[in-house]
């Protein structure tokens, strides 16, 4: 379970829930790191769904922690890949060939859920066919509003843009279309005056 209570003040942020069973001829699970636990919990009470499920998992810093258990689910397909970019061509292929009636389940970090949700929507999936369950890290996927570069797994505010190097303030403004929070130069008025970085949500 993700025990973190996301602050309700951010209205633009998606609502993260707990996976529920829905009818459908095929089920696509995409998870990173601790997100595997959401799949395991769901499968525990919905074993029959696994026969028509495709699981795509990126363990990140969880390493082998969940891989054996995922294998034991006997999903119709299981793919474990090293990084999101490595898994991307598979994800896009699955989405491009998907039919109406597919159910999509995304779990793990906010960044993974955001990126895959954006990819699913671009492939034509509607929001109400996509379920999100947050697990693990509270890091954010951030876009620099100046250079547009996206920095993954941001855990401090402010942070340094991994593309242009500016010091960016972490805004509570989530873009559903892009699947990112926005980062704005923190020392725009007074160059060099950068407050100390604090860990997000602490």
């Amino acid at each position, binding site marked *: 379970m993700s025990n973190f209570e996301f602050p309700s003040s951010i209205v633009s942020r998606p609502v993260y829930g707990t996976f529920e069973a829905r009818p459908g001829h095929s089920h696509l699970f995409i998870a990173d790191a601790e997100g595997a636990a959401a799949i395991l919990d769901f499968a525990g009470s919905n074993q029959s769904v696994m026969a028509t499920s495709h699981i795509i998992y990126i363990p990140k810093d969880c390493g082998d922690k969940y891989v054996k258990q995922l294998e034991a689910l006997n999903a119709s397909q299981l793919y474990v890949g090293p990084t999101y970019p490595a898994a991307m061509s598979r994800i896009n292929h699955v989405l491009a060939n998907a*039919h*109406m009636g597919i159910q999509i389940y995304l779990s793990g970090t906010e960044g993974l859920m955001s990126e895959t949700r954006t990819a699913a929507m671009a492939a034509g999936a509607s929001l*109400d*066919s996509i379920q999100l369950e947050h697990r693990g890290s509270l890091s954010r996927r951030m876009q620099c509003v100046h250079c547009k570069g996206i920095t993954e797994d941001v855990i401090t505010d402010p942070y340094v843009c991994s593309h242009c190097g500016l010091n960016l303030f972490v805004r509570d403004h989530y873009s559903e279309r892009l699947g990112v929070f926005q980062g704005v130069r923190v020392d725009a008025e007074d160059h060099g005056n950068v407050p100390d970085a604090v860990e997000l949500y602490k």
Partner: protein
Amino acid sequence: MSAGAEKIAVTVSEKVVLNDLVTRFQFKRTDGGSFPAFSGGAHTVIEMKDGDMTRLNPYSLMSNPLTPEFYEVSIRRDSEGRGGSMFMHDQVNVGDEMVLSYPVNLFSLDLRARKQLLIAGGIGITPFIAQIKQMSLMSGNFELHYSVRTKSLGSYVDDLTDQHPNNVHIYYDDQDQQIELEHLLSGQPLGTHVYVCGPKGMINWVRSTAESLGWPESSIHFEEFLAPQSGKPFSATLAKSNVTVDVGEHESLLEAIERAGVDAPYLCRGGACGQCETRVIEHDGDIKHHDHWLEDEERACGDKIMPCVSRFEGKTLVLDR
């Protein structure tokens, strides 16, 4: 403020009998101007003055949405209804002056869809005709599955199959042809939206089949206008306006309210849009809910009524109007 209040004075410019059941009417503006453009799926409410009775019935517009020199509707003769369609068929002729409402769309295409899957039964074809005209101009990706009783009763079958031979599929009841719905819905690419218009049974069939196959609710669209049903006469007190109206056997509560000169909101007049929802202040008797707007709990609670289609049996009914 009645949202349907914007009116257009028109003259009947064509009346074409298509088959035993369906007649098409064309209207031009009496002032010679052009009509507001609309989007496919929109309806207009036709005012029918039949002696001292005024009926206001909604019909889907089927003319080209983007070239509105005229509006067209196709009306199916319904000998069991309250008489609106019979009035149009039997008493309205070319040259007659009538009044139409501005178009309102409760059944528009979701233009984010990758593909539009249209399913029609009988006269339910009319909103799709305007939508197909709209999509042809925008090169939209669509497929129409149209079920009709017989060849001779298949309104617009020939036009549709001539113009869109690859997109249109016709099913004839009398030849035992049926839409293979499960197969059809299961094979649709991600991003398809389904639209259904036709008899109640068909709408329920498509909705429940799609839901059971895992189609998300936001991709399922339907339009069902309920004609107001006749029933026992009753009276209703309008608290704000301080009048009591008597609702006749073949009249709707909304029509009776309007007849009393009280302005009441509406859009669809068919129990679908929610616009006419009215608070019930007090009632002693049974509210006969006929709409498909209110939730079951709201019905059970008895503090709301949809006057365009619902009725009442009992002693007192007091409305917040």
